[in-house]
């Protein structure tokens, strides 16, 4: 899922304080799982912003609501009126939702979150990165652990010389991805694979190749 983290209140306030009417708009899928951008979090954020407005003596009407997903047209149907009726929207979605709304509505759409990574729920309250959507998956060669997303140097033939006690050179709190890969290859009895050189990667399927697009022609033509 996509993980996000709420921006500091001050930063959000600076974006919206010039408006008369703002809708704080939650997105109830990915960013609700990490308790940062769902309708519930939108409600709490709206409350904090109302308090801020009172403290600053700024006259601004702040409402809140949310939908299931801000990255698909159909989910907006029930909220068209409240979006039309507001001067600006503070979207609690990831960067995708914010942009999707901006394309749909001719009014300011501000981000309440910093979109942080594609990750998993390790345990309640702990979310960690797993994928960078590089467009050419190498997990089949690396024991199911991604060196692109989980090695600080995205080294395809690791580990580098900075791996110590299973941890990355950047922090004792970060696992060395290549230690994990080697442990996993050992477990699977595939250590012979380790000495195979990973070829030079074609990054054109990554961000480097420009904005990416997937077309299912069978569906898109319907």
């Amino acid at each position: 899922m996509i993980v996000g983290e709420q921006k500091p209140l001050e930063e959000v306030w600076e974006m919206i304080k010039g408006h008369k009417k703002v809708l704080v708009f939650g997105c109830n899928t990915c960013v609700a799982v990490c308790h940062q951008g769902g309708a519930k979090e939108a409600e709490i954020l709206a409350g904090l912003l109302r308090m801020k407005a009172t403290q600053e003596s700024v006259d601004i009407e702040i409402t809140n609501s949310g939908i299931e997903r801000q990255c698909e047209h159909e989910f907006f149907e029930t909220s068209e009126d409240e979006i039309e009726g507001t001067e600006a929207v503070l979207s609690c979605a990831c960067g995708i939702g914010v942009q999707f709304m901006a394309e749909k509505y001719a009014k300011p759409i501000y981000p309440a979150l910093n979109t942080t990574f594609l990750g998993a729920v390790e345990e309640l309250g702990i979310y960690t990165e797993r994928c960078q959507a590089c467009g050419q998956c190498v997990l089949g060669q690396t024991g199911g652990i991604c060196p692109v997303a989980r090695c600080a140097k995205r080294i395809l033939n690791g580990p580098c010389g900075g791996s110590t006690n299973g941890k990355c050179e950047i922090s004792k709190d970060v696992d060395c991805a290549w230690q994990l890969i080697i442990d996993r290859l050992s477990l699977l009895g595939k250590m012979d694979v380790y000495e195979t050189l990973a070829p030079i990667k074609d990054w054109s399927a990554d961000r480097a190749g420009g904005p990416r697009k997937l077309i299912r022609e069978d569906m898109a033509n319907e």
Partner: protein
Amino acid sequence: MNDAKTPSKLEKILSAGHYAVTSECGPPRGSDPNPIIEKAELIKNHVDAINITDNQTSVCRMSSLAACIRLKTMGLEPVLQMVTRDRNRIALQSDILGGASWDIHNILCLSGDHQSFGDHASGQNVHDLDSMQLLQTVRQMRDQGKLLGGDEITRPPEMFVGAAANPFADPYEIRVSRLAKKIAAGAEFIQTQCIYNLDKFEDWMKKVVDRGLHEKVYILAGLTPMKSAGMARYMKNRVPGMDVPDDLVKRLASAPKDKQAQEGIKICIESIERLKQVKGVAGFHIMAIEWEEKVPEIVEAAGLYPRPEV
């Protein structure tokens, strides 16, 4: 091993069966070339080649390539260090061609410390290639005369290709496999991480020799003399992938403050003497960090002077 394949003096010395001695200079944090000239003057008669570090510890400095060219203009033999952190494949190959245009005949392919250690922690890192893929790249450019994109190179680079090895990083069980992988990628010489834990290094070398890897690559043992017990503690605790045994810290700490540097030099010389007995060690890479003036003393005391003429 075979005869030298490149005009590299370092390769010629190694292939003639001599112990090679290399050292390194860190470029200055400015555009004044004199620090490079001064450091090189201090060591030039006692080493075969001089590595120029590439923005080491991710601290921005004068470029390795420019400093290597400076050494060439002094008639010296540089080893161009190149990290994959800061440049993509276009820039790396471009700089290799630039270096080759100045007849720089040695290159050391590295990934580089993470940028969070340096003075531009908020910068991007590139790592379009990794260090093994950079080895492959240089070998392709040299041996096939082709760029990665496939186009022919007019006057291909003639570089003796090296890599680093850290026998002290984890996981230990793949450290020999990793060396084999670097050799498969094209490494012809290795300069190791600073060796303080000689027992562990000897164990690693034994495994290297057991696999016959010492016959496929020249291994230069890396050494950095300690200036003080404080430096030893810092290296032990703060520098990634460094293995500094407690005994060594104690030995330095038990010397009076004004004698610790001398003790550090003594330890370095003793280490070289011991490493000479280790099968597969083909030379020494003495990294006297901001202490280049001590290199001649170490080289002479370790019986590595005068340097051979090739």
